[in-house]
């Protein structure tokens, strides 16, 4: 039997959940979200420098906070409380029980809200983890959960940043944390599959956080575009698709299952080319003609 995987994986899986709107765990209740313990050391918006898998995967983190203008790797986006029945245990629950709880208490939807994103905004290079009281603090009565977002590189290692992630998706320079895809371009024809890329890097399509399984009716590109159109409009915050933009879905094959991921790209009359930036409208506006970021 293969030995158990380290605790990092569930959190990485949650990172994937960020991409898939509506596929995350159920949101925390208002009581849970609103609960902030009397522990003054834990506050939303605090930044930390976590650089090893052991620090990231631990049940608790007791390292000092750093100024968010200084290099950091995580930022607290939510403070919640452990619900019943686990909160009633005299001893802190097992690490795996806490990890499972993180998926519920620190949902991707809450992170998106903290980032200032809308339902159609997809992110990349982020992972969620939850930090619980130490065993001693638990025994003393603390039940606070610190939900942190970790900024990562393509190989999932921590990426240091000096940026404050609060409302980051609502800013013009949001491209580095937005999810885009890079497709093969062969003889002026785009490949159907794409690899994940931050929108600040050259790419071919920007994700609009909507996907569905590909059945026989969704093999033609036109059918895919038609199905994706409402999501693209939602993403662009418009009622009619602008003339200079096209719906550009990609196909993702995962474990034998084929899924269509909806995307958008500038219409390119000279044939498909890679572009940089995002088509997402800056908060309060509709889609701009040029890519932001």
């Amino acid at each position, binding site marked *: *039997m*293969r*030995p*158990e*995987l*380290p*605790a*990092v*994986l569930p959190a*990485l899986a949650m990172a994937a959940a960020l991409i898939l709107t509506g596929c995350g765990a159920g949101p925390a209740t208002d009581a849970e979200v609103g609960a902030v313990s009397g522990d003054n050391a834990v506050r939303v918006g605090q930044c930390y420098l976590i*650089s*090893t*898998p*052991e*620090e990231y*995967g*631990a*049940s*608790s*983190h*007791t*390292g000092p906070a750093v100024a968010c203008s200084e290099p950091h790797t995580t930022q607290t986006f939510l403070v919640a409380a452990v619900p019943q*029945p686990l909160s009633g*245990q005299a001893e802190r629950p*097992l*690490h*795996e*029980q806490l990890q*499972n709880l993180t998926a519920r208490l620190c949902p991707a939807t809450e992170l998106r809200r903290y980032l200032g994103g809308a339902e159609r905004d997809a992110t990349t290079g982020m992972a969620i983890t939850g930090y619980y009281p*130490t*065993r001693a603090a638990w025994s003393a009565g603390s039940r606070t959960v610190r939900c942190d977002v970790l900024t990562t590189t393509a*190989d*999932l*290692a*921590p990426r240091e940043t000096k940026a404050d992630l609060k409302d980051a998706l609502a800013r013009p320079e949001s491209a580095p944390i937005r999810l885009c895809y890079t497709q093969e371009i062969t003889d002026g024809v785009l490949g159907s599959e794409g690899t994940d890329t931050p929108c600040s890097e050259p790419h071919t399509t920007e994700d609009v956080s909507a996907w569905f399984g590909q059945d026989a009716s969704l093999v033609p590109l036109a059918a895919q575009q038609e199905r994706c159109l409402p999501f693209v409009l939602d993403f662009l915050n418009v009622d009619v698709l602008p003339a200079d933009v096209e719906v550009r879905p990609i196909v993702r094959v995962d474990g034998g299952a084929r899924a269509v991921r909806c995307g958008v790209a500038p219409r390119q009359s000279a044939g498909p080319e890679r572009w940089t930036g995002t088509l997402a409208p800056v908060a309060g506006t509709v889609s701009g003609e040029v890519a932001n970021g």
Partner: protein
Amino acid sequence: MVETTVGKSAKPDVEEFAPVPVRSGMGPRPGPLRMAGRFLARTFGPGELTLGGVRTPALVAGLVSAIAMLVRLFVPGPVGVADQGDGNGLVCSLGVSNVRPWDYADFTRFIYPSWTPHPLVGEACGAAGSGEPVYSSQLAFLWLGKLLTPLFGWGGGLDMRAVGIVCCLVFGLLIAALVAVLPGRASFRVLIAALVTVVMADGVFADFFISPYPEPAAFLGTLGLLVALLNYWNGARSRWVTILPVVGAGVFTIAAKPEMVSWLPVLALALLWLPQGSTRRSGRRAPEGSRWRRFAMPLLAIMAIAAFTVAFMAVQPKRTAELNLYNAVFAELLPHSPTPEEDLKWLGLDPGFVAASGTTVASPRSAALNPKFHEFQEEMGAGKLAGFYLTHPERLIGMGERGITAMLTPELGYIGSFMEGQGQPFAKDHRFPVVLGLLTALKAAPVALVAMQLLTLLLGLAVAFRKKAAVGRLAVVVVAAGWLQFWVVVLWSGQPEIYRQLLLSGFHAALCVPLLVALISILASGPERGQQQTASQATPGLRDPAVSA
């Protein structure tokens, strides 16, 4: 029965009817096989079982074995055992953090021996999942390795290659000590030491020298304990002088990892098996009071080791005990049970837990995610598990079979042996696969492994009681310790890492090979000659029994 009298003057009437064996090898011109046998016996036979007096061969053997291990580990490139992520629990206490890829699938493919200074605070340092401190005598090697690391230009932290060098040097010292305390001629001692080196040099054991695991302390501690016990039983010096190394080596070995607690009862029996000199030196029966007094020091030593063991087990991470208990039920007991629901009922657990059969605590179907998991935590314990197997002894048969199969599969294919760029991902080191080959061959008939251990045990008893040689006792101890280790692992901490956990049992089994060679050589060396002698006691010029046989 016709008695042959070759070499003696026989009566003519007997000679007329006595058949002369055509290929008896006893004629005036011995065959090549017998000549080879005589040559080997003359060269490597133990001769008189004298002690001491081989300082130079001991030093040379130690030096050569250390160099051989270094070459085996570092040429053409270093080989080790990749970390699965739990190495940090032990090593981080030295204020270092591993330089390796972030993702599990990446860092298990190769070894990443470099650990840089990076003090981890809180639960990031300690047992994975709880941060409780992890203790092991391996920390001594790690600490020495940390001292050596800058000298080799491997940075200011800790490099496991330096720990590998420390382990090789310690192994050389132990081999030198082994040659010094073995009985017989120097060539015989060197042969046995060489065979022990061959066992240790196999990649399934030696590669752990360059790893963050506690296994090197267990391997080397075991060897050190065997040397100390030989020295104790030789009885050539004052009892205190020989008991103290046994206590030291025993404590070091047991402190290597919790499973080594299996050594405690064996060690107690070994210490109470008093040296020959203390029971027969005078040749007269000792007075009753004096006889009991002889047990005072061994009993004191046993109490010291037992007290340490209790203290050591008390500071083991609670998390480890929780995981072992989980795995013993959900990864071992239930998946191999014909009636898992009934077993759960016997254990006083909800039948719904059967859904978690075959899982680890981190699995998506883990019982830890069951709302009634607190019942498991409250109801289950090591005592109840022991009670289950006592009332269901038939389950031990299948468990033993699985354990033996795992022991005969000592290669950990799910973690790599080479540094990145020096081998394929997950590639294993096959530079010296002698034990691997032996154990793999035994897979065809696993009963042969048990037979080999039984043979070692019986020959050990024969040598211990007929030849009065300490090597016989050693064989008995090695087999008993191996078996105890085996059952401790399969009953308590086997799954899901049963292959790695049973390496120590495999090591004990592999040590049966050099022991068998030693035992057979001693038994074949001639008739019983009473107890072994020290060099000063041996009569110079005695005929070599190995040759005369």
